[in-house]
């Protein structure tokens, strides 16, 4: 396996199409022409595999104590592993995290919903996987919030996750949802991914991940594209 070994293609069953009219903003922002298939070259099979901390910054795995006071809301620990499709761990890769606060409000000027900001919660962090691809961060459970997509539209509670992985081709941005959230099945963004694949974005509550008398716990593994097997590979 060398740096120019290509990655398996995107799984067309699991990955959303660009156009999903129920999510209205996709209508004017999706290409009308088919994508042009190109072979992966060194450009696509290489990537910012290390040194990212000099750019976007080092780990910030506790989102609850970034300010003078403690963030409001239900404390949660989120743990999991980053693996590739071949079940291989993706070590020392960065996961960028952002989310609304526990009331469902983002610390962003364009979020004008009338829910309180929390001066002790910015909602942004980063975590790095260890040699086994494992990660762990501490935050508060984000709230659901209304949005303008259609009458009485509500986004289910979610945490945004951004991963680079080892190559340009392995880039992934996704959203982690919470189990038993009735808003998921009526959310156009989650529903752009059909079942059963949508369930890959739903975390699992895990009593073993909770911290007694302190925080609830959720598990969420993230699976990136893997390098294709080559005849020279053992």
């Amino acid at each position, binding site marked *: 396996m060398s740096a120019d070994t290509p990655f398996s293609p995107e799984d067309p069953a699991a990955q959303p199409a660009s156009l999903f009219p129920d999510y209205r903003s996709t209508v004017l922002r999706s290409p009308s*022409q088919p994508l042009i298939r*190109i072979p992966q070259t060194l450009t696509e099979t290489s990537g*910012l595999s290390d040194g990212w901390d000099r750019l976007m910054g080092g780990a910030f795995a506790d989102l609850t104590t970034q300010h003078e006071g403690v963030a409001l809301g239900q404390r949660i620990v989120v743990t999991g592993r980053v693996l590739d499709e071949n079940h291989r761990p993706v070590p020392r890769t960065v996961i960028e995290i*952002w989310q609304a606060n526990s009331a469902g409000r*983002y610390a962003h000027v364009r979020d004008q919903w009338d829910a309180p900001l929390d001066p002790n919660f910015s909602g942004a962090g980063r975590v790095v996987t260890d040699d086994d691809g494992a990660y762990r961060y501490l935050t508060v459970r984000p709230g659901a919030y209304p949005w303008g997509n259609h009458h009485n539209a509500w986004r289910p509670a979610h945490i945004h996750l951004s991963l680079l992985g080892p190559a340009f081709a392995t880039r992934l941005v996704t959203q982690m949802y919470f189990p038993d959230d009735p808003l998921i099945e009526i959310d156009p963004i989650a529903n752009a991914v059909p079942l059963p694949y949508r369930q890959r974005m739903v975390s699992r509550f895990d009593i073993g991940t909770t911290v007694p008398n302190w925080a609830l716990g959720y*598990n969420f593994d993230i699976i990136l594209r893997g390098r294709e097997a080559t005849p020279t590979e053992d």
Partner: protein
Amino acid sequence: MADNQSPELFGQTPWQTVGPFFHYALPWWGGADLTGQSDIGAAPTRLVGHNPALNHSHGRPMPAGEPIDIFGRVLDGAGEFVSDALIEIWQADADGQYGGAFPGFGRAPTDEAGVFHFRTIRPGSVPGPGKTLQAPHIAIGVLGRGLLKRLVTRLYFADAPQNDSDPILDLVPAERRPSLIAQRDGEAWRFDIVLSGPNETVFFDC
């Protein structure tokens, strides 16, 4: 109970949009200047309050090669400016090498007028499939509200003689190639990205 931990569901995690509120998490001070000399790249007008996780990356030594500025606009299918897109780039250094001291990776959010700006080093040629050589190019990922998954394109330079023999450009119908070619605009390079419509940018599946 099928969820993320169910072995029968193992496979690629699906893409989701970055949404409109990524500005306090993904861009950083200096993220759009790959030469490490300035702090362009953050989006301070979108932020509320102090964000301790927002990094500063400038102040690195100037890399070798020709510094260039790239400006562009992101437009939607109605010709409107897209003011909540995020452009990511990945490129070789001036010698055509990936993974050296030159970071090669940058991010620029579009501003209120849909404009993004990178400062970087003009890349060298890099190997292509087989024994081919690719023309100097920059790989581009487009993210944003309304983009359920990243759109991938490439920027080539109008004055590069290698464009005529580039193995990737060769796969693009001649009449659509201009959307991949940055043009000189004064001292800078101009590269607009049209997400949809008659002048739509070529996007790749790779």
